[in-house]
């Protein structure tokens, strides 16, 4: 009997294979990180400081809209249209969300709030996220995810070394994570376009 569970996952895998979700997600991370870095070089007045933040939010909305347009104009005419059902989350993802929720709960507990301001916070977060990515990639046998996990682990000491405050450290971590995600998404999208030329005639029966 064919592996029906594997076939059932194909609609979600197909959209991931196009690279569009990675491109959109990576760009959003990059834009949010860049907006903070731009704030740092602008004069410290209320209006000027708020402008990059709102510009980034508008750009993020534009990115999500653009992702939808790319799917409609480039992806669906080549590979077909599908709207996946919400899929069961993997156990690793569930553990990660529990860990993140517990972590944030602990940090927001009165008395622990100063931990967020601590220099070790973002490096520690990078180590945890990198470890989860590495283990997840190893279990699912996806080398790309494993390499990404190793990359994020290597970011941790760099984030620790950066001679900036925690807010800017966070911004640099977003930029550092966003760039490889965008590159990965672009490579996947290009690969999808090359492997799926536009059909010469309408396939619809």
């Amino acid at each position, binding site marked *: 009997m*064919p592996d*029906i569970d594997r076939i059932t996952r194909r*609609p979600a895998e197909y959209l991931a294979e196009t690279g569009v979700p990675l491109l959109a997600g990576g760009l959003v991370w990059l834009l949010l990180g860049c907006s903070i870095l731009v704030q740092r070089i602008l004069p410290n007045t209320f209006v000027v400081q708020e402008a990059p933040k709102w510009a980034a939010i508008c750009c993020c909305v534009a990115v999500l809209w653009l992702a939808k347009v790319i799917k409609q104009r480039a992806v*669906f005419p080549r590979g077909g249209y*599908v709207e*996946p*059902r919400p899929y069961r989350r993997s156990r690793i993802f569930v553990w990660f969300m529990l860990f993140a929720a517990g972590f944030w709960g602990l940090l927001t507990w009165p008395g622990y709030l100063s931990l967020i301001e601590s220099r070790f916070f973002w490096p520690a977060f990078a180590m945890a996220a990198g470890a989860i990515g590495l283990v997840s990639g190893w279990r699912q046998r996806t080398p790309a995810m494993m390499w990404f996990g190793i990359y994020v682990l290597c970011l941790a000491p760099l984030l620790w070394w950066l001679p900036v405050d925690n807010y800017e450290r966070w911004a640099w971590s977003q930029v550092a994570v966003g760039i490889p995600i965008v590159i990965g998404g672009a490579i996947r999208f290009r690969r999808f376009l090359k492997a799926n030329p536009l059909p010469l005639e*309408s396939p619809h029966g």
Partner: protein
Amino acid sequence: MDDVDRIIHEPARLMIAALLSGAKEADFLFLLRETGLTKGNLSSHLAKLEDAAYVEIEKTFRGKVPLTLVRLTPKGRSALQSYRKRMNGLLRQL
């Protein structure tokens, strides 16, 4: 084996039903590419599934481009689940 659903049991239709069970809806091109069937073959299998009320087919347009959307009905989803349980039970007996 007599009580196995012959509509779903056919490999191509089983694959179509399994693909649609992971989606809210899919178009003809997606099913064509994922199943590897020819257009005529796929149309024929979809017609059989539609006759059994396992799928619903909507022919519409996206702009000026014709679009054939396919969805698995609740009856089709239930039939697929029952088929899986039946086949797993039969395989366990071997």
